[in-house]
């Protein structure tokens, strides 16, 4: 059963002000309805005026994603009712969007690249935010915060060309990185990237899943929905063309069947806004170095592997972090950052920007000098990250090494430890002498344990061999 996925990605642009009024978009630390004016509250008599910066940002995205910008585009009203929509219409773009076509080269299953084509990019305003309160049919009510109302969004629509949740996740990572590189989007703002997905099994009806509010939820939501659809096909049940909502907390999609969702959006051109004729601006919009170019440069400049380069450039902050510490020792910094540090950060859900550069750089230097083992170095890294997470001033690696006695054990002191491990594990020594594979690994492990990781496994193996030869 072939899976077909198309995505609609809503991205908040990080302009200073909203799309059609001068209210600040920097509302996340403030109370409800504190960044609201007559325009974004939809008071009678108000008129929208388009934020030029938002158009420039959207065009920047269009250029970076290789879209065509038509000579003429316009805003339209999408009419529907909902308490988060203060005018009862959303100003968006309909049949004359800002940009058409375009593509993203996405990492494919085989490690190569697969081109995912885009349908269009258009601009629109964000609705407000609802909070559900009370209980019982008569007691329930809704509270509305219009701070978000009018924040500029771009909606990026892909062709249905993604074939697995994993591929969709990779696509979103790549897109997110590109948007970050462009400086038009702030990934740390909650809800700044939201996704709707169209999912079908080839030969069956298409289902739209809305309300995937975190891009991390996409893979889960898609996996659930595909499993649901495949299950229905196996049971010979009919898949109906419908809109479903993703319930983040439960990880399931549920049907949005209510009659209240019956829509006829009655689009028509927004009479209060002049059309856009901005295609000629595109040439003059400067683009920064984008993830693909930076990846290629990393391979060239630092001599690191394609895979490490791809990982390190997959996030703007990570790439910038890497460049800060890489210059002296890229061969150590690349695997350490891409393989070890990233894993530790994900485990802690900690942004790379919180990693203290001097500490991390000093740690890599200790590794390079060979003064600690890799195992000890990981232990030191964890300690430093934990100290940062707990809000403490992190210790420098040298201090930690001295405090915990983590200097790599070398020469005689290890020979003594190895000798005693061999005495205590005669059975394993016998197995080893009998040519049993695996016995040596066990012995090395015992020595590592005895030195609390302060010895280098290769050196241990060599000493074991030497001692047993005697």
């Amino acid at each position, binding site marked *: 059963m072939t899976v077909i996925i198309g995505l609609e990605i809503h991205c908040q642009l990080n302009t200073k002000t909203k799309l059609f009024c001068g209210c600040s978009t920097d509302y996340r630390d403030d109370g409800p*309805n504190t960044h609201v004016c007559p325009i974004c509250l939809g008071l009678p008599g108000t008129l929208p005026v388009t934020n030029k910066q938002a158009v420039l940002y959207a065009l920047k995205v269009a250029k970076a994603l290789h879209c065509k910008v038509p000579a003429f585009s316009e805003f339209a009203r999408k009419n529907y009712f909902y308490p988060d929509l203060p005018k009862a219409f959303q100003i968006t773009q309909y049949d004359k969007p800002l940009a058409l076509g375009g593509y993203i080269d996405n990492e494919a299953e085989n490690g190569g690249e697969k081109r995912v084509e885009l349908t269009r990019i258009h601009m629109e305003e964000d609705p407000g935010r609802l909070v559900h309160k009370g209980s019982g049919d008569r007691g329930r009510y809704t509270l509305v915060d219009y701070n978000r109302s009018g924040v500029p969004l771009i909606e990026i629509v892909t062709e249905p060309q993604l074939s697995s949740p994993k591929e969709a996740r990779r696509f979103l990572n790549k897109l997110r990185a590109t948007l970050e590189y462009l400086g038009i989007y702030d990934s740390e703002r909650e809800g700044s990237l939201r996704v709707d997905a169209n999912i079908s099994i080839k030969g069956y009806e298409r289902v739209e899943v809305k309300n995937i509010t975190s891009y991390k939820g996409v893979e889960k939501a898609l996996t659930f929905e595909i499993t649901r659809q495949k299950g229905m096909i196996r049971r010979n049940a009919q898949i109906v063309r419908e809109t479903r909502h993703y319930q983040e907390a439960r990880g399931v999609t549920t049907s949005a069947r209510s009659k209240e969702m019956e829509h006829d959006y009655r689009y028509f051109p927004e009479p209060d806004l002049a059309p856009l004729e901005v295609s000629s601006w595109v040439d003059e919009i400067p683009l920064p170095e984008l993830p693909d170019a930076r990846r290629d440069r990393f391979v060239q400049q630092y001599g690191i592997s394609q895979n490490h380069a791809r990982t390190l450039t997959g996030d703007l902050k990570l790439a910038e972090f890497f460049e800060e510490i890489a210059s002296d020792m890229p061969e150590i910094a690349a695997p350490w950052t891409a393989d070890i540090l990233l894993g530790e950060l994900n485990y802690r859900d900690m942004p790379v920007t919180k990693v203290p550069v001097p500490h991390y750089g000093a740690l890599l230097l200790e590794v390079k000098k060979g003064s600690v083992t890799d195992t000890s170095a990981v232990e030191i890294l964890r300690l430093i990250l934990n100290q940062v997470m707990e809000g403490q001033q992190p210790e420098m690696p040298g201090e930690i090494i001295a405090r915990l006695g983590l200097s790599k054990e070398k020469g005689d002191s290890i020979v003594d430890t190895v000798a005693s491990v061999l005495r205590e594990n005669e059975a394993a020594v016998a197995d080893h002498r009998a040519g049993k594979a695996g016995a040596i690994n066990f012995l090395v492990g015992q020595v590592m344990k005895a030195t609390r990781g302060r010895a280098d496994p290769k050196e241990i193996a060599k000493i074991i061999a030497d001692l047993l030869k005697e």
Partner: protein
Amino acid sequence: MVSKEDVAHIATIADIGVDESELDLFTGQFNAILDYFDVLDSVPIGGDAAPLRKNVFRDDEVVPSLSHDEVLMNATDPEDGFIRAPRVI
């Protein structure tokens, strides 16, 4: 010709209650008015009209918002700074 069902459907889309008794009245009036609008059938559809204006923008500069009190002053029973609306779920 629009039917009573058409009018009822549009009333749902437009979120406007219409009584059963009004449906007949509106349906009759709508048909008379829509008949009159049929004069537009003979209008040739040309290309897009040249827009009267284009590219009207403002700069990305913050303008003071309303005070919190002004935002809430016309709303009924605001709660914790939020505006109250009927339940949606």
